[in-house]
């Protein structure tokens, strides 16, 4: 199968605060086939996300394949709690962009 960017396979790709010290990322699929394809591809794993965001994998607190929601989600510790002076994204809502073009084999 030719590689496709994640945004052609996922219905929703988003990020948002999960409490004051973490940002959680949700990648949600419309159908089971797309979800399973991405899961099988190995393109989205704890290690791959650490590489994509250039962070140590310990900064990823949770990585979950959430079958009931046809979703993959992972959560990243902030370096400073949300809204500390200098924080450019108090809601954590614009951290997902690097996922959009992620190639899925």
């Amino acid at each position, binding site marked *: 199968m030719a590689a496709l960017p994640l945004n052609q396979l996922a219905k929703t790709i988003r990020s948002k605060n999960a409490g*004051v*010290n973490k940002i959680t990322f*949700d990648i949600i699929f419309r159908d089971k086939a797309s979800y399973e394809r991405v899961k099988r591809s190995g393109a989205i794993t704890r290690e791959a996300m650490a590489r994509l965001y250039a962070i140590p994998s310990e900064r990823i607190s949770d990585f*979950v394949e959430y079958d009931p*929601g046809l979703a993959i989600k992972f959560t990243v510790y902030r*370096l400073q709690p949300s809204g500390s*002076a200098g924080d450019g994204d*108090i809601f954590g809502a614009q951290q997902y962009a690097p996922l959009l073009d992620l190639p899925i084999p």
Partner: protein
Amino acid sequence: MQSLKIICPNGHLGFAPLRPESFQLGLNARPDYIAADSGSDDVGPVPLGSDTSTSPKAWQRQDLEYMLLASRRLGVPMMIGSAGDTGSNSRVDLYVAMIKDIARQHGLAPFKLGSFYSEVPRERVRLALRAGQKVAGLDGYADLTESELDATDRIVAMAGVHPYVALLQQGADVIIGGRSSDAAIFAAPALHHGFAADQAYYLGKVLECASFCAEPYGGKETVMGEITANDVRVTAMHPDQRCTVASVSGHAMYERSNPYEEFFAGGKLDMTHCHYEQLDEKTTRVTGSRFLPDAQVRVKLEGAGKVGERYVGLCGIRDPYTVAHVDQVIGWAREQVRQRFGDSGYQLHYNVYGRNGVMGDLEPLKDKPGHELCVFVQGVAPTAEMAEEVAMIGLRQMFYARLPDVKGTAGSVAFPLDEVLHASPAYRWTLNHTLAVTDPMELFDTHLVTVGA
């Protein structure tokens, strides 16, 4: 009672106004309760620390008015949690005053208005620390120390269902709550009417954000939840929205690192074995949720502490050479601030938009800046005068940055405004912890008055 119906018209009352059309459709469905959460820690530590709302009063009042008039017309209770974004005492007082004012304005028949406070005095937490109790840090926070407590200006405790149930038992028709778990506002009436905690807490979980559990996406629309002895049913009220298996199960993961569990004062909702089933076009039925009570009740505490006064300013850069050397421009300005004020006792922050202003260290394209940049400068210091000077040196000295090969020697940056502006003081989240209590009501004072008598 075979079933109980609750409508929720807004996932964060006040932050943006509710949509009246779907709210009216919700009322037509004859709910037993009308309830909404009004708080969030997403808004950052400034509102809690400075004891303000981030929502305009007009929007808060508009939604309270819609809900109160409907509640009194239908003769069903109205419940609001985490008043005024933070749920601090002053925000509860603000909403209580608005409710009384709306009642007077519309000449409403007498009703019982319940409220409770969630603020926790610092000394209460200090007593726990000195008694050797652990005030346990959440999500990467270290356990609380007295110095972090001293750096804190205001603390609120996150109420569970307990103060709501207590006020309902006393016959409250309207409840204005201090800081609370969003879901507790909806779980409390279900528990009050004898429904099982397994379903009651799930009902709260699914309703807390109103139409965020529906699709297609569209906030501030009313949804209705119905609880029975065996299940929870959730229905979208907007004509174009539906609660589907995907949208309802998907909501469980929203803003949470673990989509299977949710913690409350007194226990944990476990959604591992939830089963979702499409009942009709607009309704999804959920079974299999569990509530696991804790032996020891731990209450979450949120606290914010002031860092300093703050001034901000911004400038733009268009010269490609200067764009490529923006860190040296910032370095020059930082050095001028350092020469004036030394290495510590203030903060100076730069967000470089067009490079990594939004994502900071998480930005993978840090080395590919755009053809023009906007640099946002913040100075934070103990006094407003010093913060103004920190920000002003930090901004204006970018204009004088000495780059060796720059062609434009008349100024390194462009100013849309040659000034710095007084912004909100800087605060930080100091408390994100839990405290053990023997009585789950201990931190929450309830009050009940009759309005319109």
